[in-house]
């Protein structure tokens, strides 16, 4: 029954690889590759095609949600700066160039130069992430989060919004009440405070009393301010609530670069709920898209960092080329994301 296998494959091209490099020394086989590129590069291209589909999914979702949404906030409403986006795009394009330069240097037997350019890429990638972090932080400081639990974005100034303002005001009021700041200073206290303020020199006791009285005055001012907010937020009048929302966080008209400051900006401790029509969906997509992109940048940087201590002999060029392919891909994704998120 072994007719087939016992056929002596006399003209076999197989040969035994003896030891060198091949771990088990089994028969080293010949192949008939279809493409004149290395397996590694082919796999990188295939891997990138899966990545393209991944980002295609995310971008498609963005497009569907954005154009299906009733309202979508303008860039200025969500504190998005086109200039920063431009800078970041430029940084990333530069890093793509440096990676190519590194590859060229490596191919032309110049390891030091290659390493230098790779380090530049690493640095530029770092700058990109740093700028991204700065942008995120800007959003966070305005209460714009990808929703839960800290997002304070409301879609419209309706009764629910009023309720949220009341809840937040109450949260701030409770400690003031416990500290006894819910009563104004008595006439005598006011006089004493004025006197202390006027005094050029204060003894330690006086200094303490002065601070306490001043804190009480300020506390009471806050108390009254919050009480006022709470009363206004209890209104069922749409106009009153809309005015309140505009006061807490004014929305700049489209394209305006005038910096408008609302109560939340002027009093960072306030952290009142804000109204950005369409803001929740915007935050969801913005943070997800840029977040996954930043994650890819980070992965690229980690790989670069791992490569840094290596010796950049010309046979490493393939590796640099493959990683470079990945890096260009990350770059291209950003080139799609930037106009979608910042310009349209």
């Amino acid at each position, binding site marked *: *029954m072994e007719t087939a296998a016992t056929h002596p494959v006399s003209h076999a091209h197989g040969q035994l690889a003896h030891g060198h490099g091949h771990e088990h020394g089994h028969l080293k086989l010949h192949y008939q590759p279809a493409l004149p590129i290395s397996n590694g590069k082919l796999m990188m291209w295939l891997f990138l095609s899966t990545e393209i589909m991944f980002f295609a999914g995310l971008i498609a979702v963005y497009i569907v949600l954005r154009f299906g949404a009733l*309202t979508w906030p303008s860039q200025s*409403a969500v504190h998005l700066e086109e200039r920063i986006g431009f800078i970041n795009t430029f940084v990333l394009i530069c890093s793509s160039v440096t990676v190519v330069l590194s590859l060229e240097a490596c191919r032309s037997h110049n390891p030091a130069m290659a390493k230098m350019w790779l380090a530049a890429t690493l640095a530029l990638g770092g700058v990109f992430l740093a700028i991204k972090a700065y942008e995120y932080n800007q959003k966070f400081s305005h209460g714009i989060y990808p929703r839960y639990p800290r997002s304070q974005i409301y879609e*419209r*100034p*309706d*009764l*629910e919004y*009023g*309720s949220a303002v*009341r*809840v937040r005001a*109450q949260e701030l009021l409770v400690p003031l009440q416990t500290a006894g700041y819910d009563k104004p200073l008595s006439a005598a206290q006011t006089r004493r405070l004025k006197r202390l303020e006027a005094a050029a020199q204060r003894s330690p006791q006086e200094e303490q009393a002065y601070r306490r009285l001043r804190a009480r005055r*300020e506390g009471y*001012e*806050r108390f009254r*301010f919050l009480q006022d907010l709470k009363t206004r937020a*209890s209104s*069922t009048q*749409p*106009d009153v*609530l*809309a*005015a309140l*929302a*505009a*006061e807490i966080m*004014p*929305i700049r*008209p489209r394209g305006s670069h005038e910096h*408008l*400051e*609302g*109560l939340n900006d*002027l*009093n960072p401790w306030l952290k009142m709920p804000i109204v950005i*029509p369409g803001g929740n969906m915007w935050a969801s997509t913005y943070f997800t898209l840029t977040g996954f992109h930043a994650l890819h940048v980070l992965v690229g940087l980690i790989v670069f960092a791992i490569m840094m201590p290596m010796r950049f002999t010309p046979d490493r060029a393939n590796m640099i080329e493959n990683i470079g392919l990945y890096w260009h891909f990350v770059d291209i994704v950003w080139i799609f994301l930037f106009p979608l998120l910042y310009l349209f």
Partner: protein
Amino acid sequence: MCPSDAGERRRVALEGRRRRAATCCALLWLAAAAGCGGLSAPQFRLNMEDIIRETPDKDPDEFRITGREREQVRQGLLEEMRREKDPQKIEQLEANFGAALDAGTEEVLKLKRDKIKKLKILNTALVALFGTPDEPYVFPESGLDIKKIRLAAGPAQTVNSNVRRGLYRQHCVHCHGISGDGAGPTAVFLNPYPRDYRQGKFKFKSTEFAAKPTDADLLHTLTEGIPGTAMPSFKLLPLDEREALVEYVKYLSMRGEVELAMARYLFVDEEDLELSRSTLVEFLAESAESWSSAAEHVVRPQTQPAHVAATDPAEKARLLAESIERGRKLFAGEKAACVKCHGPTGLGDSEDKLYDDWNKDKDPEKFGAEAATWVLPRQQLRPRNLRLGIYRGGRRPLDLFRRIYTGIYGGPMPGAGPSPGREATLSEEEIWSVVDYIRSLPYEGQVAVPPPRQLTQRSRQSGSLP
């Protein structure tokens, strides 16, 4: 195929066949045995988190002390020694350690035996009074209809004819639990929790604050469901099936009330219970009486809103508008104090943390580790958002009137009508006005989205605060 192998394979196959058959049989037998073993009759579940703090682990017949309990005693003695300052006494304690340990263990065992004995008595009494989930039984003194109960009790049976039995286990058990303790497997994920019948506290009914609901009330709840909760409408069950379920709910409630009363009697008051018919009936009578007299406590408004009686449409509209305006003032006013819980805009955004009676005492901080063992952890109560147009107890003006008049038993909502020991806070006319106002709330002009505004000059200057 490998012809040279064929003979060999056949031989191996023959040899192996017997062994394989034996294995198959063994596996099937195992499955069958486990299957049959799985079908033991269900029992009412003991779930008295607040009365019997620790129920004996598994087997009530286990009159032994476990290693864990012994260790607890030992730790207690060691703790005592650590706290002792006097070296002489420590020496004494060390010398008597073994004896003390034995004594301590004996003490624990005695308590445990005592507890098990009481539990057995409790169980016997309850089985005597009410039977088991498969074989329910009632005393005539309970006033319950055993025929209806039997239709609702027992294992679920789907038969091709239109008669279905075991209704409770088909429709209710996964939420309300087999003993009606509101702790079925699905319960913990619901908001609010399903009703614990054993408390005898029902929220949505036509009777006075603490009175039991009438049969019609329970039937209404079953028929319409409770909007805004997980209780669905069972309108499409035939009337006789719904009535059977109502009877079964009453049966479980009565059984639960008796169980709790007996448990309190045995474990809290530490009395002995005599297992005689008269004693048992005594326990039963109180609950049975409250159920049978429910119909006497139905709240019927003596008046009705002025606009209902009016015939001229213009007049009707004017009277209604006036009534709504009056209601608005009352709602916000001190006397009714609705806004305290329901919020100034009726959204139900109370500033206080509110709880139902059965949740009130379940403070996890107070109970520490024990809280983790609760089937149903504490759940906060949200006052009704009156702008949704969803009313749990029914949307008829009459239903809303009763809610305001009697309050909600088991929850923090007080009644505005008179109740024993308390004057009415609102007159009937005033209650009707509040009803009109509440009914108008969902339709009050919705807030339109205004164009984004810029910060006004005023707030830009005065906005900043220290």
